[in-house]
């Protein structure tokens, strides 16, 4: 994307617009304010400390001078001041008489000495060997002695000024540094985030353009971008699976409908060639209608399987009473089963509830019963009186098992997986009507309801078990049901 020349001029604007940059800028401002505050606080505190120190040293010096004055009077004071004033880095001493003339001292005051009232003050001064332009600031204590003589004792505040200067410079520098580092950091972070986002955007653009197998880049740092990309990749995988399923299904449907369509067309062509009488033509037309009806049924069955497999029927699932449902279907099939010499016996546990689509479950059970009626006739060597079909429903833990059992030839173990595939028929003679879709529909319906179809050996015969998750809280005051959830709790405790 960065290589795209059309977007180049907007690169800076693009960075500024990013949320990462805005966040960095906000942080930068907060940091600046904080830095200025900290520096100001340090400066203010240091200055206070320095002032206190200066005051204290001056006080000590004054105490010493006062002691000398008490012992030796003015003369002693002058001597001391003259001696101490010559030492380097010394205090400022100044003795001025009542008229304002300097008696002795090591500094020249730049303000009229007589205007200085007793107490603490700050005033400008020079050392005598300096040119007049140099202006120094001193902190002074002024005393008026009994003779009207004023004594100034103080210290040069050069140190404090130097400190102020240092702090001012530090403030400037730190401002520049923070701005520089912060700006660079913001730019760097934004650039990095943008790179990740751009990579994801580029990948998704390519995926949208059709390279559906591509996935978003994951950097393995397990950061928020990785998590996002990971989730999006999972979503893409799921979409891919669904699309593959759809592709496979439409391919299958096209293939599966081709055979009966060919048969229909061949039949029509043949009768066009051979039929000479009206009766023959009518018969051919009736056959064609029958064939197309079959085609429609195949189509309906395939659609139903497809819909069940697509799994988007969730909103049509409703609480369903198993005993009511099954006894209804049993009642529907009873006469037919009896006529076929395989009486239907029913054993349904009361109070079982499913969350299911009534039509689909009904169709699935009807398919199982149809199969049992078609293929459940006992082998010739089995003694008479054992023929029959069982329809049973019971609760097994968290699932409800609906079983249709016959006593026919059953399905060889090796074929049980295969018969649930579409259009698989085990009977090579194709003596029974059907398309080989019955069990695939049952399996699809079971999957849709979160369950499964199990084909077991009944020795002899087939036991087809539709195992579906039971409805958790049927809201019925049936003691057998009320026990259900508690059992689950007990098991949970035992494993904990």
């Amino acid at each position: 994307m960065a290589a795209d020349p059309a977007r180049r001029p907007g690169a800076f604007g693009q960075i500024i617009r990013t949320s990462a940059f805005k966040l960095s800028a906000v942080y930068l401002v907060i940091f600046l304010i904080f830095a200025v505050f900290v520096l100001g606080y340090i400066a203010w505190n240091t200055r206070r400390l320095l002032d206190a120190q200066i005051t204290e040293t001056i006080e000590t010096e004054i105490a010493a001078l006062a002691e000398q004055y008490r012992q030796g009077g003015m003369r002693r004071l002058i001597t001391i001041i003259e001696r101490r004033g010559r030492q380097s880095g010394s205090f400022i001493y100044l003795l001025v008489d009542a008229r304002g003339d300097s008696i002795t001292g090591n500094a020249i005051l730049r303000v009229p000495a007589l205007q200085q009232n007793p107490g603490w003050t700050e005033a400008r001064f020079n050392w005598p060997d300096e040119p007049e332009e140099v202006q120094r600031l001193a902190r002074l204590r002024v005393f008026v002695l009994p003779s009207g003589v004023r004594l100034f004792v103080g210290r040069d505040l050069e140190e404090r000024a130097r400190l102020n200067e240092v702090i001012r410079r530090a403030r400037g520098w730190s401002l520049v540094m923070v701005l520089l580092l912060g700006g660079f950091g913001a730019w760097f972070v934004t650039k990095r985030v943008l790179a990740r986002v751009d990579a994801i955007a580029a990948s998704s653009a390519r995926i949208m353009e059709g390279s559906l197998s591509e996935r978003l880049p994951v950097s393995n740092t397990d950061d928020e971008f990785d998590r996002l990309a990971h989730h999006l990749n999972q979503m893409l995988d799921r979409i891919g699976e669904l699309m593959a399923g759809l592709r496979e299904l439409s391919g299958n449907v096209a293939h599966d409908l081709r055979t009966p369509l060919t048969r229909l067309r061949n039949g029509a062509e043949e009768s066009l060639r051979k039929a000479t009488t009206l009766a023959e033509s009518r018969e051919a037309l009736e056959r064609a209608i029958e064939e197309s009806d079959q085609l429609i049924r195949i189509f309906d069955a395939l659609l139903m399987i497809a819909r069940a497999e697509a799994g988007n029927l969730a909103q049509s699932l409703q609480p369903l009473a198993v005993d009511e449902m099954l006894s209804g279907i049993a009642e529907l099939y009873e006469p037919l089963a009896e006529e076929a010499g395989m009486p239907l016996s029913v054993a349904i546990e009361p109070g079982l509830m499913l969350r299911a689509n009534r039509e689909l479950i009904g169709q699935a059970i009807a398919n199982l019963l149809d199969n049992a009626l078609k293929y459940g006739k006992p082998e010739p060597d089995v003694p008479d009186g054992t023929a029959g079909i069982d329809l049973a429903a019971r609760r097994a833990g968290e699932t409800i098992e609906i079983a249709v059992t016959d006593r026919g030839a059953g399905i060889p173990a090796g074929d049980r997986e295969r018969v649930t595939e579409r259009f698989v028929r085990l009977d090579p003679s194709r003596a029974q009507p059907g398309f080989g879709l019955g069990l695939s529909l049952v399996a699809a319906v079971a999957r849709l309801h979160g369950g499964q179809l199990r084909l077991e050996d009944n020795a002899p015969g087939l036991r087809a078990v539709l195992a579906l998750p039971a409805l958790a809280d049927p809201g019925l005051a049936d003691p057998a049901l009320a026990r259900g959830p508690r059992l689950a709790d007990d098991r949970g405790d035992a494993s904990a």
Partner: protein
Amino acid sequence: MKLLVVEDDQEAGRYLVRALGEAGHVADLATDGEQGLEMALAGAYDVLIIDRMLPKRDGLSLITALRAEKRTVPVLILSALGQVDDRVLGLRAGGDDYLTKPYAFTEALARIEALARRQNPQSAQLTYRVADLELDRLAHRVTRGGEEIPLQPREFRLLEYLMRHAGQVVTRTMLLENVWDYHFDPQTNVIDVHISRLRGKIDRGPGPALLHTVRGAGYMIRDNGR
């Protein structure tokens, strides 16, 4: 009967109109939803046959608009969407019956005639009579020639449905939907066995057979002597 077919596919619409005409009905054709609604509001039709997907105004909104005008004329919905929830949607919008395309004409005709009969107030009689066969809905009693015939509850409901539509063809799917309330498709002819049992009970005596099989379509209860 006067019927209105609302179908945008010209060929399918004309075929249905022609076939209904051959069956002795008068059918008009509308080719879009707006025209269909106009004609349905203006004309006195016995049954409307409405395709679900129509230009200008779809079938369901046509029915809703019609019902909002307090028209109770029965509606048969024709649709290429044969899925369970689509049927429920169609009936909820105010349709009375639902038939999936492609359909057999006999099935459509049987349903149209059944709908027209339902509209007839006499259809909800307390007793039905065909020749000397009598069904008393209140007493839950069936007699033929004055002699009581004991029936299972389901057999009673089966006979009740057949007699309510006496003289009309009733298809297997109609029986499955109305007597058993199943909207799926059992592949073997489970209904036939129920019918033959019922027939064994009501047509056992010396009188003429009343319960007939209509080849390629379904069943009909009828007094042949009349």
